[in-house]
């Protein structure tokens, strides 16, 4: 059988009477109610206690939010993607398929690189919006934009092709929601030493094969 420690219920008078605490709780909810009513009359930007009236009043989205993808163009209007397929390789969900192609005769100035992507498909239903493709892209061609209204009746419509990804970019550009270029992460060269090393990295043995002693 299970052993259980014996717990004595010791209540103070206020707790025993129990209406006191209930009254306190009710007072608190009323305070919230009054505060919310007041806040709803307040002008200016949205304040927290009222809810976001979604279709009309949209919440401010972080510029780095990972939403629907887009294929970027550079300032000259040239496609940045060269079809290298790094994003497809980095994707954990394997939802990107890229085909590399050469631009047709006379269309070379439409593309920034010497090659281009002949087709670019993202299965949005598979995508988990982790941003690995964005990190892997050497040309900063594919980025995750701010669009989050992605629901569709038909699952086939959720497979975004190149046209749609470029359209995403044009729409974002028109609305001024382009993703800011990522800041370079300061990488340390000689490590500034921590005063007290954590236990996790106490012993540093490099290049030691793990199973050497077992054999």
């Amino acid at each position, binding site marked *: 059988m299970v052993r259980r420690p014996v717990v004595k219920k010791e209540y103070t008078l206020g707790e025993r009477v129990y209406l006191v605490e209930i009254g306190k709780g009710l007072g608190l909810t009323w305070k919230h109610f009054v505060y919310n009513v007041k806040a709803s009359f307040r002008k200016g930007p949205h304040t927290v206690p009222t809810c976001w009236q979604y279709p009309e009043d949209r919440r401010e989205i972080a510029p780095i939010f990972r939403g629907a993808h887009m294929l970027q163009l550079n300032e000259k209007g040239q496609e940045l993607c060269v079809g290298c397929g790094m994003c497809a390789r980095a994707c954990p969900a394997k939802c990107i398929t890229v085909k590399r192609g050469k631009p047709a005769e006379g269309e070379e100035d439409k593309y920034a690189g010497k090659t281009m992507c002949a087709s670019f498909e993202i299965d949005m239903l598979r995508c988990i919006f982790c941003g690995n493709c964005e990190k892997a892209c050497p040309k900063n061609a594919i980025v995750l934009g701010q669009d989050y209204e992605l629901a569709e009746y038909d699952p086939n419509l959720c497979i975004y092709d190149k046209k749609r990804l470029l359209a995403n970019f044009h729409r974002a550009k028109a609305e001024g929601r382009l993703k800011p270029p990522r800041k370079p992460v300061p990488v340390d060269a000689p490590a500034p030493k921590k005063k007290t090393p954590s236990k996790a990295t106490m*012993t540093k*043995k490099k290049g030691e094969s793990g*199973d050497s002693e077992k054999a």
Partner: protein
Amino acid sequence: MSLKDRVADILGKDLVALNEFRGDLCIEVPKGRIVQVLAKLKEEGGFDFLSDLFGVDNLDLYAKAAKKKKKSQEESEDTGETKGKESVQPRFEVIYLLLSLSTNERLQVMVRVPEDDLELPTVTGLWKAANWPEREVFDMFGIRFKGHPNLRRLLMWDEFQDHPLRKDYPLEGKGEERHLNYDIA
């Protein structure tokens, strides 16, 4: 006295191999004496907390090693002799993660289980915590634990046939579907 020496001291002959990597100590003990060894470690070594128990399938690792060996053999054109030695290596490992609450030291106790004798004694008598992990090891690798109070599948459904975490089981499965044996709807 360092942990290494202490463990060697406590176990004596039962210590088959000892391996340290990045501060983590892993010891190998013989399969037959696992319960005794763990009891000893619990009583004398102060490792009174079982933090986890799990299996490892070494099939690919051996295949890789064999390939490497073959390659080096071909290079040196040294044929014969060491053939078939890899198959003797037990395929599975079961690792017990122990923790000493007083000294905060962790120890990995490893025991090798060959494919033709997939049975281990249970340690639920020492730690109740081994209950579900052992069931999971049975579910995922097919290693049976003798004396376990309730050795059924844990994560997969009961009618499931295979052992998914074995290396020869494909990631996407073999197309199993779960059907209840009574009609729904």
